């Protein structure tokens, strides 16, 4: 594997084409969705129509069969256009969320499940986190009881993004009680099934930013799931879920870098234009240096993101780099957004200058899908060989 510094011709074409779609949706558009909570339907429709949602899906089911590198590039372009996480999160799950089905689904399941996600006809959500277990996924409490024809799921989930509009849900639930399983991570199973609203109540959580893409609490009461909707082997859900985690972390890192770049571009422009004490504020090193530092941090994080993607695409172990990508991307993105708000002075706090929205959205990549602490735990343990702390 070599890490490419220059984009290939096809990657440059991808970047260009995605930039063109994003150019239709400017900061005013995203400010509007952030204000109203309106889901960016036309943007998602444009991305679906251009075949972009299938970027990393296999060609047999109508995808483009490209790698994580191209997917990360595309998602970064979306975020960097000013769409930030309002745009990226609106399509994020389509890109790698269904990797468990790609990797472990039967031929029949792939045919049934993937084409409608690529076309945008099906909208998926991802129900893993629970109120009582948090990051300790093995302790989740949602149960899937076996019946003659399949399973019945009962339990609670939290933070499920997109559940208001989802037609499908990828959900992990216990099929064997924790105390009867060989290991705590055994006995969990993964299902991709209809989001049946007669059995699921989804309530949006009022939150800090990204109002356009909501998160929910779910109450699931007796949701019947046919056995054809079980993904992979029963009891192996946790291990199957893990296959999608590294690409997802890499994508989030790349998206955060994109958001940071959007913020930095605005800050650089404003620092040129705003004149105080008879000179542009950007002429003061106190303003210029934080921006220059943010640039350097973004570039460094970007390299790690694309290294993680290159490793994954080459079929190599990418865990450490994927985790580092998410950590560094999240931090660099946040620092750039903070520097951008600061460079704007009081105007950084005004919605009119858009950077306050970026700043609020930048928190997402620091918290989600896994916390900084858990990433550092992973690196300490797996890379440095330190004892497990929890």
């Amino acid at each position, binding site marked *: 594997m070599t890490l490419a510094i220059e984009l290939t*011709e*096809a990657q440059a*074409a991808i970047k*260009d*084409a995605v930039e063109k779609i994003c150019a239709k949706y400017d900061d005013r558009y995203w400010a509007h969705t952030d204000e109203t909570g309106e889901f960016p339907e036309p943007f998602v429709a444009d991305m679906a129509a*251009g*075949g972009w949602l299938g970027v990393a899906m296999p060609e047999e089911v109508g995808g*483009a069969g490209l790698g994580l590198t191209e997917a990360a590039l595309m998602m970064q372009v979306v975020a960097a256009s000013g769409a930030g996480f309002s745009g990226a999160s609106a399509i994020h799950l389509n890109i790698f969320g269904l990797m468990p089905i790609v990797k472990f689904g039967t031929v029949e399941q792939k045919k049934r499940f993937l084409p409608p996600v690529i076309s945008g006809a099906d909208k998926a959500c991802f129900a893993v986190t629970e109120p009582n277990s948090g990051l300790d996924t093995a302790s989740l409490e949602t149960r899937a009881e076996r019946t003659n024809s399949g399973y019945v799921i009962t339990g609670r989930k939290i933070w499920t993004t997109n559940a208001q509009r989802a037609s499908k849900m990828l959900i992990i639930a216990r099929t064997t009680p924790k105390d009867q399983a060989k290991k705590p991570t055994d006995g969990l199973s993964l299902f991709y099934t209809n989001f049946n609203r007669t059995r699921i109540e989804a309530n949006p959580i009022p939150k800090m930013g990204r109002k356009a893409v909501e998160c929910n609490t779910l109450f699931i009461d007796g949701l019947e799931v046919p056995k054809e909707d079980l993904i992979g082997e029963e009891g192996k859900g946790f291990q199957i879920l893990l296959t999608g985690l590294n690409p997802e972390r890499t994508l989030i890192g790349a998206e955060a870098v994109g958001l940071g770049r959007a913020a930095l571009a605005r800050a650089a422009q404003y620092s040129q234009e705003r004149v105080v004490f008879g000179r542009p504020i950007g002429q003061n090193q106190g303003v210029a240096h934080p921006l220059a530092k943010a640039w350097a941090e973004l570039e460094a994080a970007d390299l790690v993101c694309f290294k993680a993607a290159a490793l994954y695409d080459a079929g190599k172990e990418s865990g450490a780099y994927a985790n580092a990508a998410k950590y560094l991307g999240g931090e660099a993105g946040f620092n750039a957004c903070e520097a951008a708000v600061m460079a704007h002075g009081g105007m950084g706090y005004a919605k009119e200058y858009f950077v306050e929205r970026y700043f609020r959205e930048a928190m997402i990549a620091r918290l989600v899908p896994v916390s900084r602490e858990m990433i550092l735990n992973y690196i300490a343990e797996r890379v440095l060989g330190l004892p497990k702390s929890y």
Partner: protein
Amino acid sequence: MKVLVPVKRVLDYNLKVRVKADGTGVDLSNLKMSMNPFDEIAVEEAVRMKEGGGGHPAGTATEVVAISIGPEQAQETIRTALAMGADRGILVKAEGEVEPLAVAKLLKAIVDAEQPGLVILGKQAIDDDSNQVGQMLAALLDWPQATFASKIVVAGGKINVTREIDGGLQTLSLETPAIVTTDLRLNEPRYASLPNIMKAKKKPIDAKTPADLGVDVAPRLTVVKVADPPKRQGGAKVKTVQDLVAGLKAAGVI
């Protein structure tokens, strides 16, 4: 009918142009290059003629060939055209400035070999704004031409072109083969979709040199100087309409 579409690689239209400090030209280093926007419109029209759309029945064009003259990287511009729907490409590799007459001669050599029914070009390239190649090509081929097209209708073996001219629209009817150059309002070019970008990777691009085509592309013009436009003077705010009118009168504008 085969349709040829020449496409030029130019500085992206969104970018601010920077004149080189020594006044010899424009700084292109590390800047994004894209297809000339008028050429995108030309590709779009040709692809609509092939696929159907924009008033053209499908099959009006049987094949769309994109041609670019420029450095190796001009291949990317051809790929963009292929991703929009052109069938194949021809790259004429030439480093440095190729002047409009040389471009027209190279295109004539390709037209002689390809025998298209129609060549659609952008009315001008946004870098040097020459607005000459289409006209020169028509003269070299002795073909009819319609420049600044805002509508093209192919019917009964003729090409009817509506042109944007000062004060209105003019419609010309051309015998084929013909040359048409595009204006901004002819169509709105599509975005390349991901599946079409993937397909474009597999479409053939033929590489040629000016020598292959027997054309001497040595420049005949010397650029004396390239300079920034004069800096805009700051505007002024006026309080009343009377002040505005007085100001305009004083400036000799009304």
